[in-house]
């Protein structure tokens, strides 16, 4: 037990663990201290000076977020001095801010706007900024509007500490301080992996995703176009937050109803493509293992890494290009689905693929970059036309005048609308691995995985890196070569953890066969396109919703999905077959340590 320390905050006395910050202590005492630069996922900065409080015996005000309680103290959170300092610091920020709220994507979810309202700000105290000073920097995925930036550095702490990508840095000093990319290059030309984690943690509209909403409306409104939406597992567990549901409420069927009313022609489940991915990736894993373990083929690389997180793919292309051969050649479920839709499905329903528009509802900002990669055109044109984030979809729905809560439950369209629970749990960190284990183990041994209720619990949870070992005994005849072999797998989420794992791999101290990496903390459910705010608790609630829904499904293994089997029978042939190879697999591009291309 660590030492408990008595504190007095205003007229409340309580005891807190040594090292607790004043901010945490205030929360325990039921007091709200306003913050701007603080974020529960990030290192302490203590720079906005909005959270200042009086600490008896100290001459200046102290930042509550940055002050560790180490001895008994008396704190005042609502004195004239405190109120004046907060108000002046807020006014300093506002006077310098280009506050054009109605043209801002964060209108209504902006922490600065909230504070201005809370503090009853009705004028600019200091001469205010009337015209934007900076040009907007836009990549296919990320938009940076420095006119809205308040230099809280949450994005920098996200990119450098949390994600360890380091695409953003602080430039200049004093009033000229700016958040910049290396050499002030456009964000599209640097190492940014488009994870969008900085967007989720920016308190203002200075960072946002590149919204394709106008173009999607154009497609929907064009009677010639057949517009398909495929929905990933994570948005359904989070989009409710945009409509007043508690975090952790799954709204799958209401979302289907909403999408139909927005005007999409077909509504499909990306879980279906996740099942397809498991078929291809599982087969690839077994093929690799056989070549490496039995045939002694050293050109085949083990461990194999998952490739469904486009943030992770770009990360490894930049920072570990020498490991690209370890990356599964499987496209992500989003891209597999696009390629199938514009070939198999287009033919099946007799629609010219050129008239087909595939929209992917994703928790992810990097999916926008992914669908624009030149490799992703195996169907003849763009396999997926638009990646749309959960937040952006909420706007489409609201704009349509739809009240999600009032809608009936509706199903996906078929075929291609049936997904298994294994595909569903792709949304949580460890889910791809669990789905793969459920299928691979059963394909190899003919028996279900030896875990209660098919729950591969060792690789669940929110630990940064988790692993498991599974010994194969009595396999089916064709997998005799695996008899007695212990399969070792690992899971990492957030690129900082991926980096840890990669460094250990480089040292040669790891002997895993298969590694799942998701670029975002928590996996896709914590994606950069998910509703704001985010926190460990919110991500845990979304994970619970996903695992609960998996339990309710009858179909929980990818290889048992009848629509997948139908797809192989009618079109693809077999996993890793000729057509699969053409449509469902891809290759990767080594990139620079600083820039998209070159060095």
């Amino acid at each position: 037990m660590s030492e408990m320390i008595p504190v007095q905050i205003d007229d409340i006395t309580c005891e807190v663990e040594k090292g607790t910050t004043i901010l945490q202590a205030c929360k325990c005492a039921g007091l709200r201290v306003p913050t701007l630069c603080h974020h529960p996922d990030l290192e302490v900065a203590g720079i906005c000076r909005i959270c200042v409080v009086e600490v008896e015996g100290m001459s200046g005000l102290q930042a509550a977020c940055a002050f560790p309680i180490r001895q008994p103290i008396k704190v005042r959170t609502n004195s004239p001095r405190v109120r004046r300092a907060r108000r002046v610091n807020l006014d300093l920020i506002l006077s310098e801010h280009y506050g054009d709220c109605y043209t801002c994507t964060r209108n209504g979810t902006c922490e600065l706007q909230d504070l201005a309202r809370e503090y009853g700000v009705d004028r600019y105290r200091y001469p205010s900024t009337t015209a934007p000073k900076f040009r907007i920097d836009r990549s296919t995925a990320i938009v940076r509007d420095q006119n809205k930036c308040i230099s809280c550095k949450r994005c920098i702490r996200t990119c450098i500490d949390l994600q360890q990508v380091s695409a953003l840095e602080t430039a200049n000093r004093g009033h000229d301080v700016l958040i910049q990319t290396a050499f002030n290059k456009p964000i599209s030309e640097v190492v940014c992996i488009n994870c969008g984690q900085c967007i989720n943690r920016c308190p203002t509209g200075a960072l946002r995703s590149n919204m394709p909403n106008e173009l999607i409306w154009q497609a929907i409104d064009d009677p010639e176009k057949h517009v398909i939406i495929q929905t990933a597992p994570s948005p359904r567990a989070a989009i409710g937050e945009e409509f007043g549901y508690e975090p952790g409420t799954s709204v799958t069927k209401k979302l289907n109803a909403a999408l139909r009313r927005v005007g999409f022609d077909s509504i499909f489940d990306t879980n279906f493509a996740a099942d397809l991915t498991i078929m291809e990736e599982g087969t690839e894993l077994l093929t690799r293992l056989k070549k490496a373990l039995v045939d002694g083929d050293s050109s085949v690389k083990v461990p194999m890494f998952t490739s469904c997180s486009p943030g992770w793919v770009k990360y490894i292309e930049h920072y570990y290009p020498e490991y690209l051969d370890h990356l599964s050649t499987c496209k992500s479920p989003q891209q597999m689905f696009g390629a199938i839709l514009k070939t198999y499905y287009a033919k099946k329903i007799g629609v010219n693929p050129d008239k087909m528009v595939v929209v992917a509802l994703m928790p992810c900002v990097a999916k926008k970059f992914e669908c624009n990669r030149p490799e992703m055109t195996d169907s003849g044109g763009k396999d997926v036309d638009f990646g749309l984030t959960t937040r952006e979809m909420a706007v489409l729905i609201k704009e349509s005048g739809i009240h999600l809560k009032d809608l009936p439950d509706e199903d996906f369209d078929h075929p291609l609308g049936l997904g298994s629970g294994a595909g569903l749990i792709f949304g949580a960190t460890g889910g791809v691995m669990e789905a793969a284990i459920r299928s691979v183990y059963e394909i190899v041994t003919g028996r279900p995985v030896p875990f209660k209720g098919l729950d591969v619990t060792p690789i669940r949870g929110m630990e940064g890196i988790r692993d498991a070992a599974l010994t194969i005994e009595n396999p089916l005849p064709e997998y005799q070569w695996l008899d007695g072999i212990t399969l070792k797998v690992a899971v990492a989420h957030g690129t900082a953890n991926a980096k840890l794992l990669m460094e250990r791999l480089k040292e040669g101290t790891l002997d895993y066969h298969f590694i799942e990496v998701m670029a975002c903390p928590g996996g896709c459910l914590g994606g950069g396109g998910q509703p704001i705010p985010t926190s460990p608790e919110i991500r845990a609630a979304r994970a619970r919703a996903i695992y609960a829904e998996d339990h309710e499904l009858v179909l929980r293994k990818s290889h048992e999905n009848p629509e997948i089997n139908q797809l192989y029978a009618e079109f693809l042939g077999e996993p890793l077959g000729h057509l699969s190879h053409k449509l469902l697999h891809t290759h990767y591009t080594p990139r620079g340590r600083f820039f998209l291309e070159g060095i």
Partner: protein
Amino acid sequence: MKNEKKKILFGEFVTGAGLARALEMGAGKVVDEVKASKLRGRGGAGFPTGLKWELTAKQESDEKFVICNADEGEPGTFKDRLLLMEQPEKILEGMAIAGFAIGAARGFVYLRGEYIYLRKILEDAIVSMTERNFLGKNIQDSDFSFDVEIFLGAGAYVCGEEFALISSMNGYRGEPRNKPPYPSEVGFRDKPTVVNNVETLCYVPYIVTKGSEWFKEHGTQASTGTKLFSVSGDVKHPGVYELELGITVNQLLTEVSGEGAKSVQVGGASGLNVAEKDFDKPICFEGLPPGGSIIVFNHKRDMLHVLKNFMEFFVEESCGQCTPCREGNYRLLEGVKMLEKGECSVRYLKELEALCDVMKDSAKCGLGQTSPNAFLSIVENFKTEILYR
């Protein structure tokens, strides 16, 4: 006026005597003696040196460090430069004694980038003292070893702030950090570290050899010892002076032949502007805060222009991380420009004064906490001159 003969740093000095005495006394007694002397830091904040050493000595750690802060960047300050140039051995000996007292085996001189030409002098002193076994392994045949390296600063004023300094030595952007924890707990390479000003360290060998009682004969009860002042501006004899703490502005002006002054900036840009009516006030920790720089202004000076220079300096030198300093100094400079054009109302000037109070109260480090001093004191002293131009 006090006895002007009472000099310490400009008095006699024999290299090694203090160190030898310290080794005899033992670490605990050295800390006690420095505490008893009531020596307070000469780098600006005036923290009791003995207490700082005691706190660092108490920390359990496999490694500790001593850093000599030679970043001297306050406008109008050049007293550390003189010590670096003329008395490097005294500095190094002070560092070694500090190292002995807290249990550190390595020290660094954080030398201001612009002072690169002093590097050679310091290096030669290190070599020479090592040859004489006042530095290096088993100093004077004791168990105590101490090495000193030089670290060249990158030229930012804020890097003189102890945490920004440590952060830049650790290879990061030179930005101040929240305290606590203090450097005595988590400093260079996250190890307990004592950061002392050049001048502070120079008093140490004297305190150890001559005793704290002797030291306390100088200065006032609460501000013991002497202090170096870099005197510039409208005086006949600018330069570095060693004077006792507690000296009044008037006495100081007599000493440096600064007759006809209309105000004196005590403590540089971040210090206070003192008008004629306050010239009888003493310069000491309980009076006018004793920064290292004294800038004298005569009746020909335009005080708004003086203020503008100071504010330009802070806008430039703020590290820019915290709101009150980044935005506040910019607003104060903007206010000065409005005043220049006669566009600043009395009401808005009041608003700016309130801003100054908030900066002092809520900025993250000493830079933002002290940068409004000049604004407040000059506006207060010269309101008519400034408002009705």
